């Protein structure tokens, strides 16, 4: 009666993944500083394996086409790359908001002027303390602090917006007010007060880095006070240490949700520490298009969304607030990357962490640092 119905091709479900907002471009792992909380992975990429200028250019074009808005040139020390200026030019050409995350070491007045002329949008300058003695002890680089002060002045002279990035820990947390005031003196519009994350190299120095609970509470109070007082002068972004908090931080704003990281050799990670999760494999931009890696790769889909979550995360009302916290921290402490972040009050490991934290952050001598060298 009727012509046989030809069954249509099975419809392949199309994954709808919103594009990333920001890309961290780790241009190199090389760095003159030796910070005890270095966030580079334990196994660093050698100079010979770094992406070339042409490869980075392609990555920047692909990122912009996908919908990335901000590119953060970072490292290591990105100024160690001679083509930093050219990559800033490419970033601007393709419409990206270009941010330089630097220690300042390796920048000269001429380079700052050139970067500014090429349209660099913003600079984030790290400081390790409010005086040369402390800062140079932490960074393991003599003269670093004085040089940073010069770099800040060159940035200011160009009218480039500056964020001071202050990494806080046991040796400098009590100086948070002075740190904020230094940022104002340097003409910064914004300060990021970030407590050290205890990952990778920092684990070796945990006892020297973890502040006491009382130090953290005092710091938080100062931040709240100064934030109100400096409204319209300085924006204060504050990342409290999660070893002392109740709920975990929304690490990376959720896995594969907001940010994408490129290692110096082109390996693409959902967060800069993700390579510490041993069962995941990561593609590189030398093998696959960036958009495919973001949308389709098994690593980016491993902990994306909420379907992967076990209990207690699965039924938790905060699962779309903190996305289960940090997968790398779960890996490090629970030995299972899909476990509840051990910093969460709902984690069975929370008490163990608290005891460990409180024992190690006892008032007393700060143990000597185990410095990071290349």
């Amino acid at each position, binding site marked *: 009666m009727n012509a046989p119905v030809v069954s249509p091709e099975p419809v392949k479900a199309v994954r709808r993944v919103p594009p990333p907002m920001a890309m961290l471009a780790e241009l190199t792992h090389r760095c003159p500083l030796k910070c005890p909380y270095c966030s580079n992975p334990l196994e660093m990429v050698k100079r010979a394996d770094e992406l070339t200028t042409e490869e980075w250019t392609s990555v920047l074009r692909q990122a912009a086409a996908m919908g990335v808005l901000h590119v953060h040139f970072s490292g290591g020390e990105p100024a160690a790359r001679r083509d930093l200026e050219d990559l800033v030019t490419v970033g601007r050409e393709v419409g990206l908001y270009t941010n330089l995350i630097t220690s300042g070491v390796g920048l000269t007045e001429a380079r700052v002027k050139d970067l500014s002329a090429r349209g660099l949008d913003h600079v984030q300058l790290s400081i390790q303390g409010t005086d040369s003695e402390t800062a140079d002890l932490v960074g393991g680089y003599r003269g670093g602090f004085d040089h940073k002060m010069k770099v800040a002045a060159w940035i200011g002279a160009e009218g*480039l917006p500056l964020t001071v990035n202050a990494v806080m820990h046991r040796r400098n947390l009590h100086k948070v007010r002075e740190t904020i005031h230094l940022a104002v003196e340097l003409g910064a519009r914004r300060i990021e007060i970030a407590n050290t994350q205890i990952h990778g190299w920092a684990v070796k120095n945990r006892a020297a880095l973890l502040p006491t609970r009382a130090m953290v509470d005092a710091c938080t109070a100062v931040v709240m006070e100064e934030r109100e007082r400096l409204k319209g002068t300085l924006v204060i972004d504050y990342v409290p240490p999660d070893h002392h908090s109740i709920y975990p931080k929304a690490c990376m704003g959720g896995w594969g949700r907001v940010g994408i990281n490129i290692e110096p050799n082109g390996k693409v990670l959902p967060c800069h520490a993700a390579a510490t999760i041993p069962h995941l494999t990561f593609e590189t931009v030398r093998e696959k298009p960036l958009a495919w890696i973001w949308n389709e790769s098994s690593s980016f889909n491993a902990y994306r969304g909420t379907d992967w979550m076990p209990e207690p995360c699965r039924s938790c009302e905060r699962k779309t607030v903190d996305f289960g916290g940090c997968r790398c921290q779960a890996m490090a402490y629970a030995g299972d990357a899909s476990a509840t972040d051990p910093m969460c009050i709902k984690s069975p490991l929370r008490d163990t962490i608290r005891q460990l934290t409180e024992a190690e952050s006892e008032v007393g001598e700060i143990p000597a640092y185990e410095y990071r060298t290349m």
Partner: protein
Amino acid sequence: MTATPEDRLPDTATPRISRGVRLRFDEARETYMLLAPERAVKVDPIAAAILEEVDGTKTFAAIVDTLAAKYAAPREQIAGDARRMLVDLLDKRMLEIAP
């Protein structure tokens, strides 16, 4: 002690978007976005229309006049909305008053 929005942004002041802050149309998300250090703020069409008049030469009063003429809307209402939004951006250091 607290300054009113009118103190922060008087009619005679000339606001301008700070260096390091850019308004652009985001093709992927089909919306205007205001890009600033570590921030990307979705800008609705009304806010985008206000920001497009912030060119560093017009006073706040002139901006409101232009918008009132363009959109045939009550001047007072536009002034209130525009001031609220721009003062918020002053607080976030995305906007500044030209000297």
